[in-house]
């Protein structure tokens, strides 16, 4: 059996081992790679950056812990940036565990040294409205009245008693919406209902699997920007100036991608050299 035949018959566990090492070794080095910011991220950050202090930002956390490695870094950066620049956050979730992921981001932001001297008060600077069942129909109801969808916040306070929500009736009182999405319901539903019916200005952070589905919305201007997966999170961290885990893990991801590409090339070369592709074609004929 020649070298290329062996390559074609390689035990897949070797590939797993190489991929694992390609992630672990760079991770242990903790090197931060220099990242360029894509137009998708820049477009979103430009809008976010130009919001004047006091602007009301609606953040919908539509994901759960399995997608946190991809979406939590961008959510952390977005929340921290909002607190630093006096943006008023109205947080909600169409996934049951989304608002709990938001609490993680809030706590991390409040614990950060940059916010040590800043007074961020619940109910005044931010509010967590919690989860509401109903998928896109929740967005639909919010279009007429937020209170219909969220009678109380996550802490049990009545909507009308929360100062930050005093003049917030529906989407017309929201300056910018930010959606972190891992599937259904998520960015697609926010675009279809909030953007296309109520003219909400929307930026989205998506898992990498979902990002290709959101690209047409970006091209059509239905989204102002799109953060795709951990790479999008890393770019957003760099843009906001709060480099953290996603930025550090980019080296691991780069190495892992290089390994996958290498194995794809080796597999295809072996396939061509050993003539298997040709014999398959002949068999098909």
């Amino acid at each position, binding site marked *: 059996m020649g070298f290329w035949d062996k390559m074609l018959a390689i035990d897949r566990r070797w590939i797993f081992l190489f991929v694992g090492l390609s992630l672990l070794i760079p991770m242990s080095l903790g090197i931060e790679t220099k990242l360029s910011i894509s137009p998708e991220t820049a477009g979103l950050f430009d809008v976010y950056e130009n919001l004047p202090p006091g602007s009301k930002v609606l953040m919908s956390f539509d994901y759960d812990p399995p997608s946190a490695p*991809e979406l939590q870094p961008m959510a952390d950066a977005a929340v921290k940036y909002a607190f630093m620049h006096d943006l008023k956050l109205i947080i909600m979730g169409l996934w049951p565990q989304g608002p709990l992921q938001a609490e993680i981001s809030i706590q991390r932001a409040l614990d950060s040294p940059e916010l040590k001297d800043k007074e961020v008060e619940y109910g005044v600077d931010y509010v967590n409205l919690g989860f509401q069942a109903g998928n896109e129909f929740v967005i639909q109801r919010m279009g007429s009245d937020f209170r219909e969808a969220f009678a109380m916040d996550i802490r049990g306070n009545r909507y009308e008693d929360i100062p930050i929500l005093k003049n917030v009736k529906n989407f017309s009182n929201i300056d910018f919406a930010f959606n972190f999405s891992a599937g259904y319901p998520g960015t697609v539903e926010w675009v279809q209902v909030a953007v296309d019916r109520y003219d909400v200005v929307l930026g989205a952070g998506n898992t990498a699997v979902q990002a290709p589905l959101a690209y047409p919305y970006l091209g059509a201007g239905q989204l102002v920007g799109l953060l795709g997966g951990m790479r999008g999170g890393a770019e957003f961290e760099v843009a906001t100036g709060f480099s953290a885990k996603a930025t550090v893990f980019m080296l691991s991801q780069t190495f892992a991608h290089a390994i996958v590409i290498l194995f794809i090339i080796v597999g295809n070369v072996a396939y061509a050299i050993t003539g298997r592709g040709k014999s398959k074609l002949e068999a098909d004929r």
Partner: protein
Amino acid sequence: MNFDIGIWIAAFLTLGIMSFLYKDNPWYKISEAIFIGLSAGYWFVSLFWQNLVSKLWDNLWPALDALFTRGEFTGGLLYLIAGILGLMMLMRLVPQIGWISRWPLALVVGATAGLQFINYLVSNGVIQVYNTITPLFGPVSEAGGIAPVTDVWHGLGNALILVGTFTGLVYFFFSKEHKGFFGGAARVGTWFLMITFGASFGYTVMSRMSLLIGRLDFLVNTWITGIFT
């Protein structure tokens, strides 16, 4: 050593699931069974409280109370219809009268189709079609020349969208045999589709790597680091 039972259980289960990469084994099976059981239990409780109680019972009970204590008919009684439809859905569990469940199912399918039709037609249909109708060149300038939209690359990008959309649609047109010019266009469409699938695959790889990074980060920086601190 910083001992946290939750972290140790999480590490045990993470390694159990990862052990499948080597080969199927009892450790993996236990971890998988725990995951499935926990998920089913979590979703049952979540749906019970977030849907059945908060959406149906909390709305229906005050209406029933008003009806039987004060004799008032309130709008909340409409939830009775939803409740009955929900019960009809459960008739699937009884084979002899399982056909009853088709009625609420028909309502759900019909209502969802109607609502989603509008959403998809506008956001994924009309607006996307509108977005593909882009000018390849700008209007005739005062000097008489025809300038590209903003720059050459922008014009080429728009041309690519036009070609990709047209040939992609041709590929999915099966009423005419893919021969001659039509066949050539379909072949070009295939290439566009392959590039699209390749991009999706690339993103999927990135996503899976990110999830693995998340788990490795937990194992190395939370679990192992915790043991030695």
